[in-house]
């Protein structure tokens, strides 16, 4: 069986950034395994701009951002395999992958970086009511068909879910001549970035129906119409509020889920983000297996993905070189009041000078504090005039605040008292 130092599962933004970081920290024997036909992952079909403002200080499109990282990987002669699907991973870090030239191959690695990205939630996942005609598809699927193959998947389109890809597809399909009739969002607020609400919907006069969902899909062979209804606070459809839209396409932009099956199969604990629980080095409970990017928690910005993957790559390099990865991870981090999830799940009370937390709030809120409590004692609070679920929050605390104490750190949202 071939042995390598570092195997990276996924050749998208996270995998490429992790590979480059590991290389630059002294690791030469690296293999990237990519399921698709190209390096760059989902960036290749995200032809819109807005990528790279933090990483490269300029505004790039997805393919341009990917090309920069592909060049970094190629300049370093890092080995990669395309069309190669990893089907199994063991606790001893033996990978099984397959492609059409090599067949089924086993590979043993000293360290693994899991960077397999995320998957779109499907019609089945939300038990979409009604028929199952052609013309119902995920936003990413419509994006792939249009941007890489050149097929406009419909002429009269309705969109369920206000996730960013859905909003971006509303604009893309409008530009290509389709009529986008509207976007329905189950929540009382938008789940896309503000800028996408403005430049994808407002610019083209596409209505957004907040607190609405599709209550019936109608069509025999091709989609004929969708019926949407308003929902109450418990997200139950309100009878009598139905609206009908004659359309041939329903695009679902209803959320992304970490594509983390390989690590889940190893029994690694799953966090509330539905990725594996990791410590501040992005190492899972199995030493030498790291996880970063959308497979760990779904990000809004690729700039944050590559930043995170770099940290994972650096720590994978340290692990391979036998350098100790800080000290014991003696503080458990949990999501408290109104916080959806927090990454990482474990940190060390000593070691590096600061700890960085990434989290999302459950609801849009104004005039709130993000409060950090260690063993029930408040150690820090951060005022936020506005905080929304669609924007991941990244905050750092100096470790001196922990005073070397171990235990449980809870991150919560507390409303500022009205004066």
């Amino acid at each position, binding site marked *: 069986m071939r042995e390598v130092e570092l195997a990276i599962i996924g050749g998208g933004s996270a995998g490429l950034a992790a590979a480059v970081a590991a290389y630059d920290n002294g690791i030469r024997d690296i293999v990237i395994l990519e399921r698709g036909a190209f390096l760059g992952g989902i960036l290749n079909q995200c032809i819109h701009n807005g990528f790279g403002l933090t990483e490269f200080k300029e505004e790039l499109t997805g393919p341009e951002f990917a*090309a920069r990282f592909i060049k970094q990987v190629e300049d370093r002669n890092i080995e990669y395999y395309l069309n190669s699907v990893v089907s199994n991973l063991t606790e001893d870090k033996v990978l099984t992958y397959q492609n059409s030239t090599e067949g089924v191959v086993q590979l043993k690695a000293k360290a693994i970086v899991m960077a397999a990205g995320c998957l779109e939630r499907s019609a089945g996942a939300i038990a979409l009511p009604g028929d199952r005609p052609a013309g119902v598809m995920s936003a990413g699927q419509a994006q792939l068909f249009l941007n890489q193959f050149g097929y406009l998947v419909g002429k009269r389109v309705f969109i369920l879910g206000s996730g960013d890809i859905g909003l971006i597809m509303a604009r893309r399909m409008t530009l290509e001549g389709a009529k986008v009739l509207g976007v329905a969002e189950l929540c009382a607020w938008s789940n896309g970035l503000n800028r996408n609400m*403005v430049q994808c919907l407002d610019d083209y006069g596409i209505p957004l129906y907040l607190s609405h969902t599709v209550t019936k899909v109608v069509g025999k062979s091709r989609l004929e119409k969708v019926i949407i209804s308003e929902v109450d606070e418990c997200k139950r459809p309100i009878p009598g509020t139905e609206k009908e839209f004659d359309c041939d396409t329903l695009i679902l932009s209803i959320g992304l889920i970490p594509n983390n099956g390989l690590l889940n199969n190893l029994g690694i604990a799953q966090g509330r983000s539905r990725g594996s629980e990791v410590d501040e080095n992005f190492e899972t409970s199995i030493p030498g297996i790291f996880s970063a990017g959308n497979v760990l928690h779904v990000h809004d910005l690729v700039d944050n993905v590559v930043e995170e993957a770099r940290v994972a790559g650096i720590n994978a390099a340290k692990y391979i070189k036998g350098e100790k990865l800080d000290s014991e991870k003696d503080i458990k981090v949990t999501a408290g009041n109104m916080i959806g999830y927090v990454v990482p799940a474990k940190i060390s009370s000593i070691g590096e000078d600061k700890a960085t937390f990434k989290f999302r709030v459950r609801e849009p809120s104004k005039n709130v504090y993000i409060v950090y409590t260690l063993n029930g004692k408040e150690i820090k609070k951060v005022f936020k005039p506005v905080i929304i679920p669609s924007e991941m929050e990244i905050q750092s605390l100096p470790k001196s605040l922990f005073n070397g104490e171990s235990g449980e750190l809870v991150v919560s949202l507390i409303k500022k008292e009205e004066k």
Partner: protein
Amino acid sequence: MKELICIVCPRGCRLTVDDDLNVTGNFCPRGAVYGKQEVTNPTRVITSIVRIEGSDLAMCPVKTSAPIKKGNIFKAMEEINKVKINAPIHIGDVIIKDICGEEGVDLVATRNMEAI
């Protein structure tokens, strides 16, 4: 006075532009430029695709090298949809010069597409 959401970057600052074109609420200087521009002459970068022959994909992604007038968006799409190119194409290659007659704004390729 006008309230806007800045679209320069994904941060999405909430801007206020008063009648004298003073911008507040912006986190960075680019927000001030955007706020002024948006109330006087709104512009957008357009990204799309053009048909490519001789490469392993049917479509090559493209963008305008600078923002174009908002009113020119659909005119630009008409020009974009008429174009056919041949591989190889590299990032930055000019596909249409001075798109919609906007001087200095070109349609450029955003992906390297080798000939096969």
